[in-house]
């Protein structure tokens, strides 16, 4: 079944592009994570929350473990931030395979990447999948915001009449739902015991064998692939400002300045995530300054080695423009990457902001002023 058979809802809300990669919520916040307005949110909840009125049970939708080409395309679009609102499935109860009243119940978010990761990992298993309404946001981000939370879980249990569908009282939740779910409160309110499964859906088969998670299954890492996969959305967000800046610089200061800003941005958005573990220093801003320094260096060199006809003061001025103007751009983008990183803390980010943003602003400001002054002097002869 393709994603479309799961009745993808198109709503006007932001969605986190990443469903399976661990994303930071402690430094929290998903760099591009937005929520619906409280008005829209409560209206949606009210709509879906109506307990089913009549006889019989609420609908249990069928699900399978096949991730189709259409699904992969949907994931691709999500990662590039296309139609950010559209990557959802209908909340409610799904039957994977041919579950019986004693089959396990797994809980996930109504974001297609989360849902697809879960159902494909459970290939060959007969199970129920309880999909919570997280407005198309992945489990970890939604947990941080509270939408993958105690209230929604209890609400969804009631709305799907889960007590009548299964005869056991256990729910397997993704571990990264824990920031939003109070396990002992869910038990008190619904009678269901929350069992936190592994971080990654791919570990579910091994987890189900032993019904226990190894320490490795409970740890979040930030490997190369997980870093790489965040680049498209960051690129999409910075693309237009970068092009505008490059155009402006090209017009007033020439092609090299335009190339400089493009290099600084691409370093911050593409190179930084890739090189993250190998850049020295602990703080992302410092790592960014170092990377930005490397990027600025060839521009500084080119300016200094320019034809001896150019006045030395002018050359020094332009060299200073690159030296002061480019590294803060890369550093600022690096600082913002903390929001997509699963190990930076809010306290650490706050400290970095207080320490380094003034430095970035100062350096960049001087660079801009110098650029304007030097460009004007060149234009005016």
């Amino acid at each position, binding site marked *: 079944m393709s994603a479309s058979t799961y009745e993808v809802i198109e709503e006007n809300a932001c969605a986190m592009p990443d469903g399976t990669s661990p994303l930071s919520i402690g430094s929290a916040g998903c760099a591009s*994570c937005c*929520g619906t307005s409280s008005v829209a949110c409560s209206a949606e909840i009210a709509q879906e929350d109506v307990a089913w009125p009549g006889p019989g049970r609420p609908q249990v939708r069928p699900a399978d473990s096949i991730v189709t080409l259409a699904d992969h395309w949907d994931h691709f679009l999500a990662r590039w931030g296309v139609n950010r609102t559209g990557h959802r499935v209908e909340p409610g109860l799904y039957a994977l395979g041919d579950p019986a009243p004693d089959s396990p119940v797994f809980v996930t978010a109504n974001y297609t990447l989360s849902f697809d990761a879960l159902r494909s990992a459970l290939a060959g298993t007969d199970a129920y999948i309880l999909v919570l309404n997280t407005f198309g946001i992945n489990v970890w981000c939604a947990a941080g*915001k509270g939408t993958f939370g105690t209230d929604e879980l209890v609400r969804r249990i009631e709305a799907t009449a889960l007590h009548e569908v299964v005869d056991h009282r256990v729910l397997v939740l993704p571990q990264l739902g*824990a920031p939003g779910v*109070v396990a002992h409160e869910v038990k008190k309110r619904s009678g269901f015991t929350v069992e936190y499964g592994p971080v990654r859906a791919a570990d579910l088969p091994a987890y189900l064998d032993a019904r226990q998670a190894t320490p490795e299954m409970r740890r979040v890492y930030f490997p190369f692939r997980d870093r790489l996969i965040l680049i498209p959305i960051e690129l999409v967000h910075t693309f237009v400002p970068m092009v505008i800046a490059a155009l402006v610089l090209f017009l007033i200061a020439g092609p090299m300045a335009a190339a400089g800003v493009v290099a600084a941005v691409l370093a911050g958005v593409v190179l930084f995530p890739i090189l993250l573990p190998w850049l020295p220093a602990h703080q992302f801003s410092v790592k960014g300054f170092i990377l930005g320094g490397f990027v600025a260096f060839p521009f500084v060199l080119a300016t200094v080695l320019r034809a001896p006809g150019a006045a030395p003061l002018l050359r020094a001025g332009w060299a200073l423009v690159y030296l002061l103007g480019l590294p803060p751009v890369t550093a600022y983008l690096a*600082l913002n990457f903390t929001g997509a990183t699963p190990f930076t803390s809010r*306290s650490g980010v*706050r400290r970095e902001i207080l320490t380094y943003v003034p430095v970035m602003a100062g350096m960049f400001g001087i660079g801009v002023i110098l650029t304007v002054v030097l460009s004007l002097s060149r234009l005016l002869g």
Partner: protein
Amino acid sequence: MSGEPVSVSCGDPVGTARARACSSVPVDTGSVNTLRYSPALCVNCGMCSIVCPHGVFAVDGRVARLVRPKACMECGACQRNCPTGAITVDSGVGCASAMIYAALTGRKEPICGPDTESECCC
């Protein structure tokens, strides 16, 4: 609030310096982050070590131990799932651009979620 954080176990042999240090005074992580843990309130349920994505807690004694306090990313899962409130941490929105915006506009730091009026983190 400076220096290496101390991992105190109430399970240490009675009479030792470390056991004496185990009291109702919360163990904190120094100035690194806002994680605070009170071993005296721990009932050894193990939830903190289950939900933590970075192995900050270990449950191998009479009570939980802070074994990797600096690894805490302040996600709040442990605080949420501790039945006795032995753990506190400041787990709000920490996305840099939101915090910078709040600092520049002088607003309180934004929180996002269905219970708040804010539409977005930023």
